[in-house]
């Protein structure tokens, strides 16, 4: 559907239903529905729903736009409506941080699309490649720079993530799943468009992606607040996608991982939203031992972290596998090693997450009255978890859909035989067999174990543990594991990551800016003598400059 804007014949806008757009639209629908499912638990103002509707509308606009102008409009509206949605809970500083980065992102996107427009006078995706090629080298670099800044800020790529963590942490528990699942995906969508339509920008993406995965993973390990931890985890997960998009055939893996990540982040954030709902606590150090109070939630979180860590046999492994083989295919071996390294490091924070909330013994007594979360929290989790299990079992299920997108983008298709298998040039993976074998072995071992079972005595209370021959009491700090990962700081390299923060850089920037402003402000002192002198000087300079 093409139409023009502002009565100007030189601007053609277009909305188009493409497979890629549908893919993301599906994710939007899924996220919106699941998030709305838990909404009745919170008392929200009417304006919240209004803004949320606006946000979802803007997301659809972004997705179905087929030219960069509509895309940009959607992008801005998304940023602003998110701003007001966040404003319900965010502190002033975090809010300001968010919007500054969002505006920087929007404006650099604006510059980029205008640069694109300047050569071929078209905003359409079809013409983007040509427009790009028509630019001079310098402008091409400028364009890539601005475009990537815009995208990276939205993705929260390391260095540009300063806003993201605070925004996630302080946002409404209802809204966090959506933030993580959808809003960052829009950055991804932009990146996919950029990579597919314009240029690959291989090295930048590779380096940024790898740095993001590794640094964000270690940052996540350090966190003590659940939402901060998951925020960093989101950054890291998107880092994988950025990395894999740097290679020629990475699109399939990227889409696959985007799907999985959306599902799992929805699952995790809804899960912890439920936990926070029933306990009113957000710090890992305040929680613990909830497994027997919230057993269903525990299982869902377990599924979530298994996916997040990319463990077989669930969906997470399938997407990781796609990413690995794509990198392998492109012979980006060190990159692959880096990605696998950060994937292995992720075990620490996923364990920290599940341990901190559900395992161990709570230090505080007041968690003993907690009941299982309301069914409105559980229902979407059932849906998401079963989706993840199904994708894990039949990893080929989504391949035809991804292939449709790849075909549309003129990329190499993924090979597809049955829905149980994923086939790449290096190896194949049969999710059904893995799932079946694991299930079978698990059940067999369990049965054998049950047969041999004898009555074990239950611990009397939470202090009934082996504790260095001492008797722990109320004053003892039982919940130890929430601070795990601290000792990693003693490792030089990791210490470097932990110690340095983009905060210093941005603070420095802000300080310089304010200093500069203070200097410039002196000009407007309202001193008329100065103004007249300068006016005359200005006139003289101009006169003498151009006098013949």
């Amino acid at each position, binding site marked *: 559907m093409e139409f023009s804007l502002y009565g100007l014949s030189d601007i053609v806008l277009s909305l188009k239903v493409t497979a890629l757009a549908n893919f993301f639209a599906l994710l939007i629908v899924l996220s919106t529905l699941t998030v709305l499912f838990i909404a009745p638990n919170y008392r929200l103002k009417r304006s919240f729903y209004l803004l949320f509707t606006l946000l979802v509308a803007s997301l659809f606009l972004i997705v179905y736009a087929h030219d960069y102008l509509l895309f940009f409009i959607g992008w801005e509206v998304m940023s602003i409506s998110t701003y007001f949605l966040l404003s319900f809970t965010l502190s002033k500083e975090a809010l300001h941080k968010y919007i500054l980065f969002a505006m920087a992102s929007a404006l650099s996107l604006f510059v980029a699309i205008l640069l694109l427009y300047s050569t071929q006078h078209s905003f359409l995706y079809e013409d983007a490649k040509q427009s790009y090629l028509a630019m001079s080298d310098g402008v091409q670099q400028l364009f890539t720079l601005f475009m990537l800044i815009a995208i990276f800020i939205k993705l929260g790529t390391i260095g540009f993530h300063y806003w993201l963590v605070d925004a996630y942490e302080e946002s409404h528990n209802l809204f966090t799943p959506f933030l993580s699942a959808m809003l960052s995906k829009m950055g991804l969508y932009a990146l996919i468009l950029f990579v597919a339509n314009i240029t690959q920008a291989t090295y930048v993406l590779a380096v940024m992606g790898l740095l993001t995965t590794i640094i964000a993973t270690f940052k996540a390990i350090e966190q003590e607040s659940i939402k901060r931890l998951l925020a960093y985890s989101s950054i890291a997960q998107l880092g994988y996608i950025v990395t894999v998009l740097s290679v020629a055939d990475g699109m399939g893996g990227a889409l696959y991982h985007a799907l999985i990540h959306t599902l799992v982040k929805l699952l995790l954030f809804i899960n912890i939203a439920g936990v926070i709902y029933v306990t009113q606590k957000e710090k890992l150090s305040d929680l613990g031992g909830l497994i027997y109070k919230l057993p269903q939630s525990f299982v869902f979180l377990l599924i979530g972290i298994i996916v997040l860590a990319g463990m077989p046999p669930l969906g997470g492994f399938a997407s990781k596998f796609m990413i690995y083989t794509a990198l392998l295919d492109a012979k980006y071996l060190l990159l692959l090693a880096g990605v696998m390294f950060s994937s292995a490091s992720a075990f620490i924070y996923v364990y920290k997450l599940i341990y901190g909330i559900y395992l161990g013994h709570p230090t505080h007594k007041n968690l003993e009255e907690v009941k299982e979360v309301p069914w409105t929290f559980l229902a979407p989790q059932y849906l998401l978890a079963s989706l993840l299990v199904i994708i894990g079992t039949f990893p080929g299920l989504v391949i035809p859909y991804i292939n449709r997108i790849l075909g549309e983008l003129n990329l190499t298709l993924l090979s597809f035989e049955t829905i149980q298998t994923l086939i790449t040039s290096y190896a194949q993976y049969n999710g059904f067999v893995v799932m079946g074998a694991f299930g079978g072995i698990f059940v067999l071992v369990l049965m054998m174990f049950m047969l041999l079972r004898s009555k074990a005595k239950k611990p009397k209370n939470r202090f009934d543990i082996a504790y260095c021959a001492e008797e722990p009491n109320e004053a003892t700090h039982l919940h130890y594991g929430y601070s795990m990962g601290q000792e990693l700081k003693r490792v030089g390299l990791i210490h470097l990551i932990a110690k340095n923060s983009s905060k210093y850089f941005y603070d420095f920037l802000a300080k310089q800016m304010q200093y500069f402003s203070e200097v410039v402000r002196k000009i407007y002192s309202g001193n008329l003598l100065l103004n007249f*002198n300068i006016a005359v000087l200005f006139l*003289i300079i101009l*006169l003498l400059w151009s006098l013949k």
Partner: protein
Amino acid sequence: MNIKRDIPTATLSGFALSAVLVLTLITILLQYLPLSQQRVGDALLVLNEKEGVANVVTTVVVYFRGFDTLGEIAVLFIASLGVGLMLQPNTECRLKAESNFMLQTASTLLFPLILLFGIYVMVYGHLSPGGGFQGGVIIASGVLLLLISHKNFEVPHTVIVAFETVAGVSYVLIGFMGLLLLDTFLGNFIPHDIANMGMLLSGGVIPLIYIIVGIKVGSEMSGIVQNLMQRSDDV
């Protein structure tokens, strides 16, 4: 001799700036002196033969460029309003001492003459040098004289306002009459036979407007002067 010790830097730099600017201006102006130029004024002189009055400047001021004058009246009106707003009449701020008897008598005697002269200049503005502005200012100077000489003299505020309001409104209304009757604003709708040029009753609306301008300028200038006078003592 140390110049810097005596003269502040700001003065020096101001001197330098203004000197450089003026020298540059002089260079350009002298480089291209406008000597003989076909000007729109010449065309107006010719046009005046058909439409105007004896004093061509008056024709230009009141008729050909009538809107400038209207605007100018407006400026004066606003300025007097502003001065009135800023320096609101305060009966306590008067001259402290009564002025000398001779001055009082002379000014009382002179004032009607000045007024008369002002009115003459106003009324004959379309025939001889002079006109509404000049006449108005002459009248205002008469008022100033009285203000200086008489401690308690005051032109009532309402009188001033009445004059300037009526004059201003009638100016614009005359303009509208022209618009209605002749389809141009300020059009000369009163019959004006060119043969009468040089006579008192000639030129249609031109003398009328100039008299109105005179009244307005006179009242406004008087108002300004009076306002400034009444506040000047305690500054």
